[in-house]
């Protein structure tokens, strides 16, 4: 991309993140994403639904440049963040640009204390006053962490870990937060708490989020837009409110049957075939 391209893209009108026909392959041969198009508008929450192995995590890692460690790469299309091409960069650069991903599986630094985990979140921040302020903001958001600062992070409960992870990511001062299944393995009450916090962060800071979730119901409640991916292709997208009322989504992602009986497997297959067409 040339400098003129950058200037030509208006910094405000365009969506914060834009995926244009993104293709991802591992080891140069195994193609996982096929022409994925997606947008995250400024200040909005976008939820990304799909089954196991559909390509959700791969899409997130394509955005945050974390594919290389698994021998993957964006092989086609482009990823624009604020109008700048960011595909296949050094992940450290991507973080500095303002994209922070919370990986799935609650990856706290388990042998360090909560405090040390938080300080790692501040590792790019050189101003002490700002660092202290941001840390205080996070502890205010998740007061439960305050009493755990000296605790070894590996021994926190699942919910506490997730709070720590979100805090640690926020301390990196992102402009776009990527979250990979934050509710995985959490009790319903905790899921509500985490999603409540995410909604609050979005409201108060105007922080844009791209949220990968299996818990479609909770996610659709706080999201503005939703995308559905299957077999590496986007098969459906639209406003979250519409998605909540969409019959197919209710059936297959929310577990709410339209009729009295569950749909049969044949219907499922039919549904999948039909959705291809939508994509």
């Amino acid at each position: 991309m040339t400098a003129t391209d950058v200037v030509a893209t208006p910094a405000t009108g365009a969506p914060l993140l834009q995926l244009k026909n993104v293709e991802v392959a591992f080891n140069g041969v195994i193609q996982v994403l096929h022409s994925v198009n997606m947008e995250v508008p400024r200040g909005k929450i976008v939820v990304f639904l799909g089954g196991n192995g559909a390509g959700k995590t791969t899409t997130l890692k394509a955005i945050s440049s974390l594919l290389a460690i698994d021998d993957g790469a964006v092989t086609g299309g482009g990823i624009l963040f604020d109008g700048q091409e960011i595909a296949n960069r050094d992940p450290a650069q991507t973080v500095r640009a303002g994209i922070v991903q919370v990986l799935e599986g609650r990856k706290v630094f388990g042998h360090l204390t909560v405090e040390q985990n938080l300080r790692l979140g501040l590792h790019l921040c050189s101003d002490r006053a700002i660092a202290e302020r941001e840390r205080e903001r996070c502890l205010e958001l998740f007061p439960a962490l305050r009493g755990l600062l000296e605790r070894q992070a590996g021994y926190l409960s699942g919910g506490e870990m997730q709070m720590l992870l979100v805090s640690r990511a926020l301390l990196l001062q992102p402009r776009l937060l990527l979250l990979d299944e934050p509710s995985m393995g959490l009790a319903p009450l905790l899921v509500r708490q985490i999603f409540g916090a995410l909604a609050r962060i979005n409201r108060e800071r105007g922080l844009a989020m791209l949220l990968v979730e299996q818990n479609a119901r909770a996610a659709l409640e706080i999201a503005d837009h939703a995308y559905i991916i299957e077999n590496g292709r986007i098969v459906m997208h639209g406003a979250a409110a519409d998605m909540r009322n969409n019959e197919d989504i209710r059936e297959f992602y929310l577990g709410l049957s339209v009729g009295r009986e569950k749909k049969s497997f044949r219907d499922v297959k039919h549904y999948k075939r039909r959705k291809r067409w939508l994509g």
Partner: protein
Amino acid sequence: MNSFLQALASGTLTGLLYGLIALSFVVIYRAARIVNLAQGEVLMAGAFTIWMMTLAAGLPTLLGSGLALLAAALIGLVIERLVFRPLIGRPTTTIVLASVALIIVLRGASQMVFGPETRPFPQVLPAGAFKLGPLHLNLALTIGAVLTLVVTEALHRFFMNTKAGLRLSAVAEDHMTALSMGISVRRSAAIAWALGASLSALAAAIYLSGAALDVSVAGIGLRALPVALLGGMESVRGATLAGVLVGVGESLASTYLDRHTSGAMSQVFPFLVMIALMLIRPQGLFGWKVIERV
């Protein structure tokens, strides 16, 4: 009684030297997740560097040795860049075998450059012994022991309290997570290698001060490996403490058991500790236990 105390004291001093070498294992392992079996050869390279800077180049001993520590850091960087960086993300076996290859390459290279002959090593630390109550202590080893303690505490604080140190700890925990937070795995590995190689050179200076230098000094690396394992590969303070344990054990074995075992006991002691440890507590005394969660 006196011989017991003497064994205890000199064991502690030798043990702290082991601890220092173990630290070089630990520092590299923490940040790069590499058990570098060639650490003894890195120490040997550091020793030759000290010799070149002092006796060969004619610089004052302390100045030359100081420069040699910097040069050793450079050697560490080169090894990391050429051998281990291309192997990031490869299976552990590959990396371990690469370190075995490095043993052979470094020994071969120094044999080629410096020849097989034994040469004198400069008197970096003052020679002689001093009396402390009933004990006779080696002066160089005592100074080395103090240095080791200082270095241990400094490294511990570095890893636990400073930004750069915490970054290294983060990389030690998980490469992907570290990357996701904008922490450069490569830079951490490079810092770790520079530090590790420098520590080895420092250990060489203490170990060899006023003694002889040839390729065989590399053997001390493998004697220090059980120490690093005993302390726990991730634990800075653990390495030093384990050094003392092994040093004392070895010295007691040499005082009381060697005459019954034709001198073998003190030689095999660290490795007996290593085998027992692998069976009982694989993560070492203070190493990172794998935290299992459901």
